[in-house]
């Protein structure tokens, strides 16, 4: 009996699986529009969705690969909602969109400023989009970036992803997947931030190239922008990046410091109805370049002096960034409000109910410690 049941079940499985029958539709690869980058703009009450998709109709044919005309194609779809615009993809391309491979989502600056929650709801809710797709704001229209000509067989999605990944080495841009952006945007007191990018002409190749202008900050009612230098302060405070470069002027010459390691600790205390933040940053640097007039070397006291100047410079940048964005403009990109809430939720709730902002109640003690680890291939000179 058992053998009979087993045999029947095996036959049923084989019949079902080998015939691929049933309601699971098999979609061939060339029936898919593999999306690399998505751009969103809202104009005249309608969403314009620009899609860069792999040209899978030519893929796998003789004209495919690097000999093909273009690796990717750009499409523009329009709709009252993003979902409606996305639905028209199949109508126009004859292919089923595959969002899970999309690398980057770009939102036009005006759209991000005025319709952020509308524009992002599709990506928060729709099953097929990835949780970790990168997000950036375009300085202008998103369509200009997604449809830019970066060169033959170059995918805008890949180029953009690579450009944003440079944060690891430069420290002057941020790297924000959509879940992090939404986490900030959905919080009651926070401001969401992501890279602000544009495209410019490369005068040698005559093609377009990406430029990261800094960081776009989208608040509940307003927006602002951080310069690359301010972005570096942001990434240092938030421990978002460990690397980067900085230049300092000394009496003996100009010095470039390469940040090897950076870590910040923020201690929060509530003292006399004030939130006191002790920000302690430790940075380890190398000196890859020291420009002097006479090839003069560096002594131990020189490196100590350089470290002191660098620490002072960074303290000033961090202090100025906090003052401008948190205290003056009330954009909590550093998560100070969340720290207050974690430290003393009663104090936090009391002030939030009053509709008060925490920026006026906050005091900052900033200290930066810079240590020079290496001075390059040149030996340390005697004092």
């Amino acid at each position, binding site marked *: *009996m*058992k053998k009979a*049941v*087993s045999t029947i*079940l095996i036959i*049923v*499985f084989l019949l*079902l699986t080998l015939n691929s*029958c*049933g*309601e*699971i*539709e098999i979609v061939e690869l060339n029936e898919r529009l593999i999306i690399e980058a998505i751009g969103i703009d809202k104009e005249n009450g309608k969403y314009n969705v620009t899609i860069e998709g792999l040209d899978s109709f030519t893929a796998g044919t003789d004209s495919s690969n690097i000999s093909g005309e273009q690796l990717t194609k750009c499409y523009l779809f329009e709709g009252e909602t993003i979902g409606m615009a996305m639905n028209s993809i199949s109508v126009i391309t004859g292919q089923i969109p595959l969002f899970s491979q999309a690398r980057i989502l770009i939102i036009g600056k005006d759209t991000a400023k005025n319709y952020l929650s509308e524009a992002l709801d599709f990506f*928060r809710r729709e*099953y*097929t989009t*990835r*949780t*970790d797709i990168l997000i950036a704001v375009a300085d202008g229209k998103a369509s200009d970036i997604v449809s830019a000509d970066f060169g033959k067989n170059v995918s805008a999605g890949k180029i953009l992803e690579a450009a944003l990944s440079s944060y690891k080495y430069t420290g002057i841009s941020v790297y924000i*997947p959509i*879940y*992090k952006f*939404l*986490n900030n945007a*959905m*919080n009651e007191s926070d401001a969401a931030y992501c890279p602000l990018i544009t495209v410019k002409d490369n005068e040698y190749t005559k093609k377009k190239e990406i430029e990261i202008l800094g960081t776009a900050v989208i608040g509940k009612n307003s927006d602002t922008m951080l310069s690359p230098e301010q972005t570096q302060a942001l990434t240092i405070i938030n421990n978002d990046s460990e690397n980067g470069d900085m230049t300092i002027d000394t009496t003996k010459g100009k010095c470039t410091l390469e940040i090897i390691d950076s870590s910040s600790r923020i201690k929060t205390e509530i003292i006399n109805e004030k939130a006191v933040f002790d920000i302690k940053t430790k940075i380890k640097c190398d000196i890859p370049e020291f420009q002097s007039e006479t090839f003069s070397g560096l002594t131990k006291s020189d490196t100590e002096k350089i470290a002191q100047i660098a620490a002072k410079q960074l303290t000033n940048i961090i202090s100025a960034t906090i003052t401008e964005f948190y205290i003056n403009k009330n954009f909590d990109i550093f*998560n100070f409000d*969340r*720290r207050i*809430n*974690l430290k003393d*939720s009663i104090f*936090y*709730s009391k002030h939030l109910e009053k509709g008060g902002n925490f920026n006026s109640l906050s005091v900052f003690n900033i200290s930066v410690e810079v240590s020079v680890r290496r001075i390059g291939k040149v030996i340390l000179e005697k004092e």
Partner: protein
Amino acid sequence: MNRLGKISTFQMFAVLLLSRIIALFTFMLPSTSYLPSGDRIITVIPVIIIELVFTAIVIFSLKNCGNKNIISAASDISSVLGKAVSVAYALCFIWFAGIAVSRFELFISTVMFPNSELYLMTVILLSAAFYASLKGPEAIGRASTILSVLLGLSIIFILISVTDEFEFTNLKPILTQGLTPILRFSFYISTRTVELITILVIAPIIKGNIKRMTASWVVFFGALTMVILFVLAGVTGEYGDDQIFPLYTLTVIAKFGIFERLDDILTGLWVLCAFIQVSFLIFLSYFSLKQSYKKAKKIPVSFICTSGVFAVYLTTSQTVTSFSEIIGSFAQDILFIVLISVLPLLITAINFIRKRKSA
């Protein structure tokens, strides 16, 4: 009874772990979003306490039944009562298995085959579960042991992979809304732990110390849940609060070197977990009926139970997302409490009185 095979406490632990983990983490109930993440994490503590109380009741009832399960104990009082109790437990297992299949279908049709209704896949899953249930608890237990090792390693790997994304500022303070919502939610979670009810029925075929196994399972699973919820809150913050498949969301974020699609690996394991859970519940529904209906044939009765699971799935699959809101929590709470405490304690009390009278 021996023809059905025995299951060791270790294997039973693995079966319960897999069943619970898929029930809790592949479908976060809508009500959870009303609790801040900090409160959600500490909810685990009252859940453990409530479940340990239920465990104590289960163990107390089993101890007073001798080497029998609760259905046999009811049959000792009256064969009609025995039959009624066996049907009640069988229906309970069929119900929970049906809900599990509905949730599994929702999960698969969301992350693997979006926007599809997967009757065929469900039929295949149920056919496989039906076949596995015929093999008995030992086979299910052995498969669970291997699978729980794989799943455990995957979860550890994923948790380690996302440590870089962890930010303390994403956490929320606890008890900001008082104790009431936490206790209410703890009760809500605890009264859906069908795994504890299974102990009342399967006890006679478990080899080893049931009390230690059940208590350690409750504590271990609670601790594991706490760690997962803590990491989820620290990594995703507000975004994670309204995710219907929280552990899956975490796996999407997890990256390890060139391995960027850890979610795909785990999706395969979820399928196997669902298979274990449904097989185990189908077996138990047959086993419950077998206790009172001695002539019940294994294959036809198991087939009827599997059909029952499919019927529950068909009824609930269209509204599974909002199901707990539709039928109301109260009815399910009462049903659970009756099956895990009222009925066993009543049967134990009657048996105790009868013994004293006869003595």
